[in-house]
């Protein structure tokens, strides 16, 4: 059988490897993150929640996953 092609992206400031062709939704699932709990910025553009599966992550993409933490 044949191996999946892997790509490297920049995720929250660190290099991250994942299978090519994954959607943002798949990425979140792979990270065990509930879509409703995070906000996704792909290459500096904020994505709408209900369109996470429309966006496919490509080689060299920059992804930021943010959420709310305690602050003043």
């Amino acid at each position, binding site marked *: 059988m044949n191996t999946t092609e892997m790509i490297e992206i920049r995720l929250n400031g660190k290099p991250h490897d994942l299978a090519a062709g994954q959607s943002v939704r798949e990425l979140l699932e792979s990270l065990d993150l509930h879509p409703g709990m995070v906000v996704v910025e792909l290459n500096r553009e904020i994505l709408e929640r209900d369109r996470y599966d429309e966006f496919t992550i490509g080689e060299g993409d920059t992804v930021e996953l943010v*959420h709310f933490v305690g*602050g*003043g």
Partner: protein
Amino acid sequence: MTASQTTSEAPAVQDEALEVGGHTLTSRLIVGTGKYATNEVMVDAIRASGADMVTVAVRRVDLDRTKEEGVLHHLDPKEFFLLANTAGCYTAEDAVRYARLARAAGFNEFVKLEVIGDETTLLPDVQATVDAAKTLSDEGFKVMAYTNDDLVTALRLEDAGCVAVMPLASPIGSGLGVVNPYFIREIKRRLEVPVIVDAGVGTASDACVTMEQGVDGVLMNTAIAAADDPVRMAHAMRSAVWAGRSAYLAGRMPSREIAVPSSPTAGMLD
């Protein structure tokens, strides 16, 4: 019976509620969610404070230990109105980016705008704050702007469309209280939008003094979170804010250097 019960009955006197950007606040005390020893203490303290608006920060998900971190795992957005801040931003651009990310979380259009101008004092970059306030207001955000105690800047922020202007009492986390009541009073006197004092309160009397200046509310975090007993201090702050507000509305006696007897001078025996 214990002294604690002396505040247990609902006061008979009423005060109009505080409305900010169309949202009605139950309490004039807004609290932060940072710097608590545990999430349990944070939640207990916030409940004790009686606040219904709480501030949160926008940060990267920590991919190693997510479950713990997110504040939404501990605070129910139905119970508390989440006011996201742009803490840690040093440019208007950054602040705008953080505000957009916060709005994308889907809770509300409000943002506590902070654009810091100096790392040591965490004092605001007032010009960048005014610029970011304009941009965000144009995008439909309801901006509550952290600023210093400069009246001219406060007026600019109001012109920029802010729904609340939030001058500091003293530097963030300093606990020095209201260092310049004259400037705070003048800002309140001149603005139409709510003035909420943000940062610098250290203990209950600071909150009380703040409200006695006539401002619409007070926002604090460290004074509660860094107290030896945060939950008890949260109670104290809630009463202090209420006390200061009531005293302002009640109209204090004039102070004078001379003494005036409180018992009748007539009717003494021979």
